[in-house]
């Protein structure tokens, strides 16, 4: 098992390098001229800026040299300067990362809860109307475009019925608490401002639900399959013979045995959440990495686009690795290779 973990850890730097290389290749194809990848259209006429960019990225050198410089810069944390914000991309990303993390974690909680509940219900009431409804609900979530769902729910709950707040992380007029973690929910609690905490939480509900629903589908499908398998096993009969009620049988005996594969699928669905976050943040004006990426894409802000892609790739890689390792630790009987 330790060998497996070591193997994966050793492979990491190469994969990260691979990500960086792929990103570098992208910079070479932008509009045919690599200069456009680091200097915005507006600045093209400014010879100082152009010269500085050429020096920083070695644009006059050969391809391999440019690659080396690129990697070197990256390892020092230099991902270029955003055309739109005029700030270093690395700084922008770091600033906006917590918002995305908060959203994604909330979505994971919502999605897992819905997914596990639906999966358990579907398995327990297999082939009944409840089962079909649960499966349809899950399927629906995987079929609906996240951005449209967000719009629709915003319209219904915020505009028409007014029970949920509109876009944004928090009331626009509120003073933000001191940023400790970057997570508004935690920071407001730490600052002792309970009303603001509730406001932040309330703003989180809709986007987390929209993002989580899609993931709930995949999770529920897996939970259902696993539960069906576990419920057919002998020790379930033993539990019933002991006099345990159905709820206890399902939760304490069956569900506990499906926890490991369920956690892994939750870990893997992180990827999907990162993807969906891009669009969700746009709809809900959520100032995270996702909306940053969209603004960058719309404005052809290449350093930002590529910077976000690299960061997204690394985060994704790390999450998958952690999930794989957690799975192996919890279940050493599994041979992975």
């Amino acid at each position: 098992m330790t060998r497996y973990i070591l193997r994966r850890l050793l492979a990491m730097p190469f994969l990260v390098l691979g990500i960086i290389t792929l990103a570098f290749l992208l910079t070479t194809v932008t509009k045919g001229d690599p200069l456009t990848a680091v200097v915005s259209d507006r600045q093209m006429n400014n010879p100082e800026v152009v010269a500085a960019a050429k020096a920083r990225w070695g644009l006059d050198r050969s391809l391999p040299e440019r690659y080396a410089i690129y990697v070197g810069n990256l390892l020092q944390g230099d991902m270029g300067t955003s055309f739109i914000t005029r700030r270093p991309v690395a700084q922008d990303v770091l600033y906006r990362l917590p918002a995305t993390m908060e959203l994604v974690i909330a979505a994971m909680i919502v999605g897992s809860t819905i997914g596990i509940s639906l999966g358990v219900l579907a398995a327990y009431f297999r082939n009944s109307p409840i089962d079909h409804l649960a499966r349809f609900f899950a399927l629906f979530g995987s079929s609906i475009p996240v951005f449209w769902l967000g719009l629709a729910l915003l319209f219904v709950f915020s505009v028409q019925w007014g029970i949920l707040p509109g876009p944004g992380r928090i009331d626009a007029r509120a003073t933000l608490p001191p940023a400790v973690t970057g997570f508004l929910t935690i920071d407001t609690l730490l600052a002792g401002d309970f009303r603001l905490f509730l406001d932040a939480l309330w703003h989180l509900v809709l986007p987390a639900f929209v993002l989580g629903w899609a993931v709930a589908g995949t999770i529920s499908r897996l939970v259902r399959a696993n539960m069906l398998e576990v419920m057919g096993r002998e020790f379930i009969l033993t539990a019933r013979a002991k006099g345990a009620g159905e709820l206890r049988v399902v939760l304490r005996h069956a569900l506990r045995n499906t926890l490991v594969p369920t956690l892994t699928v939750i870990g893997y669905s992180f990827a999907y959440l990162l993807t969906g976050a891009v669009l969700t943040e746009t709809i809900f004006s959520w100032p995270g990495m996702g909306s940053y990426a969209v603004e960058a894409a719309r404005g052809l802000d290449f350093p930002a686009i590529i910077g976000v892609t690299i960061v997204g790739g690394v985060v994704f890689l790390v999450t998958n690795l952690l999930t794989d390792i957690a799975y192996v630790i919890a279940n050493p009987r599994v041979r992975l290779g």
Partner: protein
Amino acid sequence: MTAVAIPRMTRPRWLTLPMALGLLIVGFWLLATVAAPWMAPYDPLDMVARRLQPPSWEHWLGTDALGRDVLSRTLYGARHSLPIAVAVVAISVTIGAVLGAVSGFVGGFVGSAIMRLVDITLSFPPMLLAMAVAASLGPGLGNATVAMVIVWWPVYARLMRAQVLEVREREHVEAAVAAGATRTRVLTKHILPLCWTPVLISATMDLGQVILLAASLSFIGLGATPPTPEWGSMISEGAAQFYSWWVAFGPGMAILTIVLGFNFIGDGLHDYFDPRSK
């Protein structure tokens, strides 16, 4: 899902209710792709009425910010979304299957190199990678297609490779090799024919996801350019007209139904080939 109460004798086993629904829905949109000019009441690009009219008898889905009929634009939208999705899947499957088969069959350095490339590409969240590629290449549906193919081909490469690795060990392959068949012949005549099924099933199930990806790219402005009636960009326009909910409703429902349709078909195929999970 349960079987419909159709007399057993006349209904084939795979035609369950969801499968039938899926086929109907997808069939409808296929029809729209081909017959949009005859199905749509108005021209999708013409400003035929007053702007931002709610749904009415003349305009079942209302009109958008430029006075165009939403229903017609939605129907025409199929002409952009469906063929692109099919193209993306077809090209990805081709590239992925070829590379995957080579990797599984030849093995060695080449095989590993291909898998490294697959791993790296799959290390990116699909949306971000597609965005990055599409942005680098420039807006337009063609570039968006390239971006999507780059994102999707590794999936099929992995699948094909796994299939080839498994089939390669089977007896009839050994027999063919022993009989002196060339490596190409072994691969094409003995291994590949048995590998296609899971790949094709996967491809069909993925069509819905590709449509979603394409719409997402268009939504943020990296796919279709105005005034093309593509569903994703239509929803983007609808977002700008937030209070005129019908502008986004048409294309949104279109995407929802067609993806649902493909998912139903995919589920039906999956249940047919693996009924244990029922």
